[in-house]
């Protein structure tokens, strides 16, 4: 049984290197006679605020919201990459996050070498990887190119391989960030098919996308984020309807 439990999660994102701004600020305060450099000059952005969420086996959730609404940040909190500033995160189950297809993809290494490395990064043994190598090779349809360094691949071929590797491991909790639309038309069909299988195999799926069609296709529930808050959470059709109404009005 997999489980995700977020209680009152707030995440403040420190922004470093915004020096021009703090310099200007301290100059201004110098002119106006205020105290200089009283703060540490670190700007914080509140990326998520007071998020409560409970998901259990069988839940498939689509994340919707504008750019910068906190979708990717939420996925990274679920992936245990970001620790919230306030609140609790409890996760049970093996997580696989496809936040970036190109993770661990090294341009100078060959296709085969990349398959091995990606497998290791996902915690597989060399034996497991050998077993999967063939499936990945077949799915990517790259044939002999797999023995060549990836830098010789076209953009589309690179994505094909990355997608084939990333989706060859079935997790309990699947976290996806806009990974559709890979390669040419036939491969796109195939990748959608693979995604459906992967979603079906996983216990919990959280999927962020701007495409309502894909969300409807893969998810039963939807979570609408706005400026780091949960605007709505419920059945996919209801939430999407509300989202669309607001979008059309605004």
């Amino acid at each position, binding site marked *: 049984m997999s489980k995700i439990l977020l209680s009152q999660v707030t995440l403040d*994102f*420190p922004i470093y290197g915004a020096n021009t701004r703090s310099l200007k600020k301290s100059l201004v305060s110098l002119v106006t006679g205020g105290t200089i450099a009283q703060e540490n000059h670190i700007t914080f952005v509140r990326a998520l605020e007071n998020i409560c969420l409970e998901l259990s086996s069988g839940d498939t959730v689509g994340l919707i919201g504008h750019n910068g609404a906190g979708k990717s940040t939420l996925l990274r909190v679920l992936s245990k*990459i970001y620790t919230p*500033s306030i*609140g609790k995160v409890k996760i049970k189950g093996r997580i696989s996050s496809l936040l*970036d297809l190109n993770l661990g993809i090294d341009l100078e290494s060959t296709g085969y070498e990349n398959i091995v490395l990606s497998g*290791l990064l996902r*915690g597989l043994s060399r034996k497991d990887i050998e077993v999967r190598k063939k499936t990945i090779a077949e799915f990517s349809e790259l044939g002999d190119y797999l023995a060549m*360094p990836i830098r010789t691949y076209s953009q589309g071929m690179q994505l094909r391989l990355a997608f084939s590797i990333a989706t060859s491991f079935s997790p309990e909790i699947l976290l996806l960030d806009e990974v559709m639309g890979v390669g040419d038309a036939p491969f796109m069909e195939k990748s959608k098919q693979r995604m459906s299988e992967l979603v079906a195999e996983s216990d919990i799926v959280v999927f962020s996308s701007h495409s309502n069609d894909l969300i409807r296709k893969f998810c039963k529930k939807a979570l609408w984020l706005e400026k780091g808050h949960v605007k709505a959470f419920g059945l996919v059709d209801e939430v999407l309807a509300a989202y669309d109404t607001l979008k059309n009005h605004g």
Partner: protein
Amino acid sequence: MSTTTPIPRSFQLNAALSDLQQGLTSQRIWWSLGWQDIRLRYRRSQLGPFWITLSTAIMIYSMGILYSKLFKIDLATYYPYLATGIITWTFISSIIIEANDAFVENAAFIRQTCLPFSIYILRLLTRNFIILLHNFLPVLPILIYFKVAPSAVGILYFIFGLGLFLSIGYSFGLLLAMLGSRFRDMKPIVASLVQVCFLITPILWQHSMLSPRLQAWTNWNPFYQLIQLLRAPLLGQIPSTLTLSYCLGLAAIGFALMIVLLARCRHRIAFWV
């Protein structure tokens, strides 16, 4: 109706310790990443990693002749001393300099997966250890020609020293990696300090050339003691008690500082890179 209990994020000892433990047990990951670094650096070159060997060889062989004349030291004494000193120095200094970038370099990994942070230091140590092994090649003929050989006990001391050194590199490496990702000025500062240290540490010259007063001062130089830890057994000597206790102390301090800082900052590293 529910009670809010904001978790204090200031000190998470368990998270830090489990990071270290998980890192050590993921040896498959850091070992392959370390090897990959070596393979990639020389992918399209003919000599491959032996470029490392060659450049070390040129440096040692040419400097040896010149400096033994300059310092009027017998070549049989000076050559082995210089050669072993240079390779241990290269090992130490590149770990220190590269450690500042250990997290920044791996930003893509850190932002996309939740691998333990200590993996990136272990990757760096692996890479530099492999380079050290390459660097041994040009030193071997010198040791053989001048009949300098570590005794059986010396070999044990060397293995012990290497283990001790690697744990010092591990603890201080993690420390520097954290500081280096938060404060980007660290790397240039460290790099220039290391350069100065090369000159004030007995590598090209010998400790015994100094006045007793300066010798006592130099004993406090951590680089001197770290080099002695590895160099002495290679030269058929046994590291002094001073060296051993200094290095053990260094390791203890390094681990204490590293664990405290990791417990305090681990959850923020992802924001820093």
